[in-house]
């Protein structure tokens, strides 16, 4: 696998390319053009970037108004602020009013890990899942980032895309098919399924590599769209596997794992199951990697979880 660039860098380059082709494409930032990798955009297309200052509520309201004026708007702000400070604007001015704003949550999850919990977004899947009319996407690599942004451009409804700062490995073939709500099966195997999203997908793949050395063959699914969830892909995986592990850079409450549990239990599909994410506690701080390691969100930790679940499956 080739190491690509940070998904945020991919965002900056992709949105610039989209905007160069279409003058109705605007980005709106809240003093966040640097962290959003939009400095080149601002220099190249100064008329297509709107600065609102440190005012996230206003950012989202203005994005809705610009969309009402016929613009294709990427509203860009750190995920921690965008999905908390401006949650009511997202709920009412974007989702309820149905203006197809593209909400870009930058430095998501624990990308800003060492800055403390003010800067973590471990709630965004949960809160946005409970709001009608928004697609929630966490790209796993540069390809998924590019594809999500391109898909969002003319999508007729609001989309939230969360992006991280760390360079990501390219997980896909160049001709891979990306569609909101359609999971991508990266690897197939009959023993354990990892359903992962965003920057944890690579860790699930690496866990699958480790398990393969022990003769345990895994299916790895990139569930880039957390809402709407690809229920068919999930149910098929649960039926085909002896155990299922979900992985996300989010609270274990209300995120991808919770969404999967809702689907599985209501479909009557029972499989040994674990949700791996950030537990409900005062979150430790450090780099994204240190936080992941602390909570067992590592290839080793995921492999260990899978082995433990297979033991449960064997007893059953």
């Amino acid at each position: 696998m080739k190491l690509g660039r940070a998904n945020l860098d991919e965002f900056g380059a992709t949105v610039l390319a989209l905007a160069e082709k279409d003058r109705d494409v605007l980005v709106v930032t809240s003093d966040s053009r640097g962290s959003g990798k939009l400095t080149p955009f601002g220099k190249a297309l100064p008329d297509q970037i709107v600065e609102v200052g440190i005012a996230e509520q206003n950012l989202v309201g203005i994005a809705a108004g610009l969309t009402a004026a016929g613009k294709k708007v990427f509203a860009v702000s750190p995920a921690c602020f965008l999905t908390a400070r401006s949650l009511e604007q997202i709920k009412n001015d974007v989702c309820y009013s149905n203006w197809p704003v593209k909400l870009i949550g930058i430095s998501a999850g624990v990308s800003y890990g060492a800055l403390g919990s003010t800067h973590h977004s471990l709630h965004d899947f949960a809160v946005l899942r409970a709001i009608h009319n928004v697609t929630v996407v966490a790209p796993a690599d540069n390809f998924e980032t590019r594809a999500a942004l391109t898909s969002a451009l003319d999508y007729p409804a609001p989309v939230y895309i969360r992006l991280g700062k760390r360079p990501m490995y390219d997980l896909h073939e160049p001709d891979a098919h990306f569609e909101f709500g359609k999971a991508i099966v990266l690897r197939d195997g009959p023993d354990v399924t990892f359903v992962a999203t965003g920057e944890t997908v690579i860790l699930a793949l690496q866990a699958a590599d480790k398990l393969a050395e022990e003769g345990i063959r895994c299916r790895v699914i990139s569930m880039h769209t957390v809402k709407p969830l690809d229920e068919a892909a999930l149910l098929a995986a649960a039926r085909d596997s002896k155990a299922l592990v979900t992985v996300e850079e989010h609270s274990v409450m209300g995120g991808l794992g919770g969404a999967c549990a809702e689907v599985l239990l209501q479909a009557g599909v029972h499989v040994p199951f674990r949700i791996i994410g950030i537990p409900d506690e005062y979150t430790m701080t450090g780099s994204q990697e240190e936080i992941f390691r602390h909570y067992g969100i590592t290839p080793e930790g995921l492999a260990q979880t899978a082995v433990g679940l297979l033991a449960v499956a064997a007893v059953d």
Partner: protein
Amino acid sequence: MNTPSIRTLQQKSVQYRRTLLSMIKRANTGHTAGSLSSVDILNVLYNRIMDVTPANFDDVVRDHYIQSKGHSVEALFTVLADAGFYPAAELDTFSRGGSHWVGHPTRKVRGVEHNTGALGHGLSVAVGLALGMKKDGLPHRVFTLLGDGELAEGSNWEASMTAAHYKLDNLTVIVDRNDLQITGLTEEVMALEPLADKFRAFGYAVREVNGNDIPELVEALEGVPFAAGKPSLLLAHTVKGRGISFIENVAAWHHHVPSDEEFRLALSELDQAEAALNGAHR
């Protein structure tokens, strides 16, 4: 568009009050007093100032109106029906289960531009619209109506900074300054004064009018922008509950439905107002 006379507008204001009170009475719910304070402003906007019609509504290239004080939706629904956006009979469904004519504006109702109801949202959206129109070099304007109580929401002041920063002289913000909110006087709940000075300091060109006086409203709104390169702020001094003596300036009428007797009295006061209007012009 043929321009309705001041007298026609004044007659409409009486009829609008009758209609919105009937909606509220029939539904047994509604924001009575705020609708009565703001209906003259909506009357002037839709019948005399703005280029917004059922025919051009689906086009961005026209004037725009965002009602930030969404709770006064009865006034908006009444004026939109009169402007031909839908049959007046739809107002009979107001607040009924399954009706789109709910207790705050939604885009399910033709003529409504944006869903509001939570306070402190409309101005940012209006700023975005005005900015988008400016970027396209369009000559059209954006109008928004704010309640005075909702000015305690900080988002209004974020949006005001942006409006001034981008010199949005195609934006007119109208404040329905009726001095009351649900708990009581704005000055007792959370003091706003000196309000005109605050808006001036935030970069608006400010004018003050009697917001229940049709000629004053027409004169002021025909004069926007009040200054080149600045957003316009019309501080419209109104009476909450205007037009019905026992509702005027009583905080409890914010969200209160008239009894049968009160409703009869209200209609009779409106009949008298109409007679006086017709008599004055005879």
